[in-house]
């Protein structure tokens, strides 16, 4: 990715409200062609961060660059390449879905008339395009909000909780759409609490807690890099006691009758040998692949902050 500007680059971004630091020294990038999940518990600072990226909340310190341009230092022309959906969809309820898109088309300028029809088809609202938004369901409003974000054919999409209110089919459609957009070379940043969707949709994940970065990496790195093994043995309690007696096994634990532990050498074969010699031959031994949800909960419950 060298030589190419990041679609979105945050450098030491901070925002304080009085004594409280909502966002604290946050740095990460989103590159063209990737979908990045932006995760954190409620109040972690996700929406404040997104608002700072979109010239809606002024940072106390740090920098936001969109395609190389400083959003706060050089005005906001680079934001014209951005489509956004922040929290609830920003729609005018007294207008129809089509007129909402038409309003934004006129405001932005330079977008062909055909874009409105194409966007309605993309988000599956063609049939109800002429109805007032006040009559739309939550999911339909969400689709329209997504349509408003997509209308200008943006190079960077920033979506805050885009799956809210969508039915399962809608969620699958959105996942496919985002993957397609990334495949076309666009960058996508999604903030979401639906971790299963993030795991299936995103290439990389950025996790923050209390305004600070706690982990970032590819989804594969996050879920597979635990170094733990799940071992099924005839006497789990006995095996657990044996392992805990070792200097490397203090963190071993039982989970649903299975012993979850590290290996002294990091290799599963060595762990199997050790247990066999100790009289607990494994009936099953697999690398303990965590769900993203486990990683998320573990990281956001920790007090410490890693880089």
């Amino acid at each position: 990715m060298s030589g190419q500007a990041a679609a979105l680059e945050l450098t030491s971004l901070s925002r304080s409200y009085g004594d409280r630091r909502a966002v604290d020294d946050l740095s990460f990038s989103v590159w063209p062609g990737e979908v990045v999940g932006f995760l954190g518990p409620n109040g972690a600072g996700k929406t404040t961060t997104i608002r700072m990226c979109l010239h809606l909340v002024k940072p106390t310190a740090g920098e936001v660059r969109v395609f190389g341009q400083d959003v706060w230092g050089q005005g906001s022309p680079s934001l014209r390449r951005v489509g956004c959906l922040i929290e609830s969809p920003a729609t005018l309820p007294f207008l129809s879905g089509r007129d909402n898109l038409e309003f934004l088309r006129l405001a932005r300028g330079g977008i062909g008339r055909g874009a409105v029809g194409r966007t309605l088809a993309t988000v599956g609202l063609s049939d109800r395009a002429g109805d007032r938004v006040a009559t739309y369901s939550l999911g339909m409003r969400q689709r329209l909000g997504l349509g408003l974000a997509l209308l200008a054919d943006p190079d960077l999409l920033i979506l805050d909780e885009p799956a809210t209110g969508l039915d399962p089919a809608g969620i699958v459609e959105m996942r496919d759409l985002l993957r397609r957009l990334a495949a076309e070379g666009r960058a996508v940043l999604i903030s979401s609490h639906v971790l299963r969707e993030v795991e299936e949709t995103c290439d990389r994940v950025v996790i923050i807690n209390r305004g600070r970065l706690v982990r970032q990496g590819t989804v594969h790195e996050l879920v597979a890099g635990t170094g733990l093994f799940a071992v099924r043995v005839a006497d789990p309690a006995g095996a657990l006691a044996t392992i805990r007696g070792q200097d490397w096994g203090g963190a071993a634990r039982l989970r649903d009758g299975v012993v979850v532990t590290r290996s002294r050498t990091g290799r599963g074969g060595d762990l199997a040998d050790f247990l066999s010699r100790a009289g607990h031959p494994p009936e099953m031994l697999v690398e303990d692949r965590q769900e993203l949800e486990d990683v998320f909960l573990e990281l956001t419950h920790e007090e410490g902050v890693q880089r």
Partner: protein
Amino acid sequence: MSFGHASLVRAELFRIARQRSNWLLPLVPLAGLVILVALTATSYGLTSTTGKTVLSLARDLTDTASLVLAMTLGAPLLLIAARAAAHDHHYGTVRLLVGGGAGRGRLVAAKLAAAGAIALAALAVGMACAAAAVALGSPSLAGRMTSLPQTYWHELLLDVFSVAVSLGCCVILGTFTSTVSRSLAAGLTAAMVWLPAEQALTGVLAFLAGTAHADVFTTATGLLLAPNLDHLMQALQPWRATVEFGARPVGPGPLPAGPVGAEQCLIVISAWASGFLLASLVSALGRVDVSE
């Protein structure tokens, strides 16, 4: 994809035009014109020109029509301007627009320009309708309009200018209240209450000036926006004794401070308008944290 000024104004006009409740607003000036026709017919149409010169009749009718236009167009314009300025914050579309690269100052300027364009169009249509209403109510006068002296046409221009100033102030006031409050309800309420509240205050100050015999109250009255707007038409035509609405003097009467010159009227009105504009821009540009 530039979010240029013209694009934003076009979008604002589109939004205003597509809001169905706005379609009812022309009923207000329409009702005013119906009253104008009735006034014209009962005051002048039936009695023809008895006891009055053609110039005097034309002046009376023009003044009346101007006042009807200023009042009946002003209120809907206040509503339109206040709503246009408040909608983005009320419905959150400001996130979409600012987050997509439209500047806050540009948004305010676009709303002002859109409401201003509507005001100009409304004034033009209103004048044409008022002329038609006068012709309908007093055909005897309509037939002799071409014989009116140059003075009348000059006064007509001053009347139109006064109405335009009044409508412009309504647009700026509506934009100001909503931009500063960032609330549809508060912005609309403040916009609709502002001028009547000043009228009421004028009455109170006049009462205090009369009872306390203190100049400060009369001076204060001359600094308010509403009485100056009411008085502008008269102040611009000092060669006339009174500008009349039907058979009555305009507005709440002469300002307590006595006859106020056009220059002072225009300065006070300009100061208010500039203050409103400045506060709107400072509010839009200065309060960068958009929490809506």
